[in-house]
């Protein structure tokens, strides 16, 4: 089942603008339940793409369907936003309330969920992201990673089938990053929520089922991380780097050692090195 489908999606900010569009005729299909990472450097159009997934931006050309609903149809907008939740970069600018649980309740409240049901959803969502103990805290006293997890809980409480995260870790410290990523992976694994993770950190893509690389408004690579990352020269050519593990393998191969390029995790990498050098 395809939860997201785009057809010839083209976007330019200004309708009059005859210049280069930001998104150039993208065709994309995303299978429900998968964990998809979208990688690209600044200005590659990846955030613009994300904003098309729940009708914040509407295509200048082409179509976007969310679970069969066309995002351009205004009266389906609430259903679309209920299906695809979105988490943004800056946690401070997406938290609405002064108390954690009130903020998590914001989405369900807007959807008109009955009060007792909201209580259940809020508690479950906070437990899902591991922030239940903080439910009565003030958000501004939490760390960046905790705030971002609260923001994710706010989306989870809406029970969406897909969550789009637009560089959710860009403003976080390493431990906050790790917590957020673990949370997102767990949501995907345990609740079957489709995840679309927009990022420019290579390392965050390693655990994904599918990796889409964007450059200049186009998709330049699409496959499993194991298929995409070994294409080191192509990635570097479009201004991206590869994970440190792949980089190391690449340099060693150039120096004439017989090493696999698809050793993505540190463990795999260490094992491969051990086999060659021991």
């Amino acid at each position, binding site marked *: 089942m395809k939860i997201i489908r785009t057809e010839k999606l083209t976007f330019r900010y200004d309708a009059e603008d005859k210049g280069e569009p930001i998104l150039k005729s993208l065709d994309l299909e995303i299978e429900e339940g998968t964990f998809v990472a979208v990688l690209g450097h600044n200005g590659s159009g990846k955030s613009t793409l994300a*904003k098309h997934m*729940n009708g*914040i931006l509407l295509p200048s050309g082409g179509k976007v369907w969310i679970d069969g609903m066309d995002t351009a149809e205004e009266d389906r907008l*609430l259903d679309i*936003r*209920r299906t695809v*939740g*979105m988490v*943004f970069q*800056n946690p*401070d*600018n*997406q*938290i*609405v*309330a*002064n*108390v954690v*649980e*009130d903020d998590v*309740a*914001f*989405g*369900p*409240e*807007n*959807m*008109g*969920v*009955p*009060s007792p049901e*909201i*209580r259940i959803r*809020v508690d479950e969502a906070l437990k899902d992201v591991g922030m239940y103990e903080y439910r*009565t805290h*003030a*958000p*501004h006293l939490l760390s960046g990673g905790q705030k971002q997890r609260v923001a994710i809980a*706010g*989306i989870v409480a*809406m029970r969406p089938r897909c969550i789009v995260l637009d560089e959710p870790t860009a403003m976080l410290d390493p431990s906050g990053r790790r917590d957020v990523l673990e949370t997102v992976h767990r949501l995907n694994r345990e609740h079957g929520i489709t995840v679309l993770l927009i990022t420019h950190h290579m390392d965050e893509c390693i655990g994904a089922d599918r990796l889409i690389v964007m450059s200049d408004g186009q998709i330049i690579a699409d496959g499993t991380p194991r298929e995409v990352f070994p294409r080191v020269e192509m990635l570097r050519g479009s201004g991206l780097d590869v994970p440190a593990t792949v980089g190391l393998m690449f340099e060693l191969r150039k120096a004439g050692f017989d090493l696999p390029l698809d050793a993505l995790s540190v463990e795999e990498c260490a094992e491969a090195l051990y086999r060659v050098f021991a």
Partner: protein
Amino acid sequence: MLKDITLGQFFPGTTVVHRLDPRTKLILTVLYIVLLFIAVSWASYGVVFLFLVCSICLSRIRLKAILSGLKPLVILILITGLLNLFYTRGEHLLFRVWKISVYWEGVRTAVLMALRIMLLITGTLLLTYTTSPIQLTDGLEKLLNPLKKLRVPVHELSMMMSIALRFIPTLIEETDKIMNAQKARGAEFDTGNIFQKAKAMLPLLVPLFISAFRRADELATAMESRCYHGGEGRTKLKVLRMERRDWIALTVGVLLLVLVILLRRLGL
């Protein structure tokens, strides 16, 4: 300096005062303010004061918190007191220095006015100290609900208020950051006379405003993504319900009002 702002500060707790319905507390606060303006005698001030002290004790708010809330207004209180002291004329002249004469009535009015302001502020502080901003705006929205029929955007107003309150700490933090960044490049905020200080604040306000607008834009997008579409069809996590304690508190408030009006009638 910026951390001293206690506006909208809330001390969480589980006391009776904390658990009162925000609508009750709002009505009581209005009643309390009316009381203060009806009260003219020492006896009626005593009644109001007693009510306040009882509420503070019940709420377990520490005296220190209340004093720190009063601190920024000391100058206002002093000026009001002094003006009343010098400008009230009466029969019992206390002393006269040059052209300024101080009457016994002036002293009385000055003290009462200063007391009135202090009681007024302490009472409203108690409201914000024991009621979370969300509860407060929820209560206000519910209280003003009848105005919706007159096309007053009650929900929007209360949403704006709660968001404003939510962003106060965020913007204070941001101000601190900008100040430090400018200090690091040689800006001075603490020296010079008041005009120089005000002028030094200007380069602070520009980036602050820009960032506030950017935040507002992002927040609006985030809210829309979470299905926000105004107050229509919205439900609440915490439904306000009037309990027995609310009715008791309101009865006490009305009784006090009657008492103070009686005292005024009796000329005590």
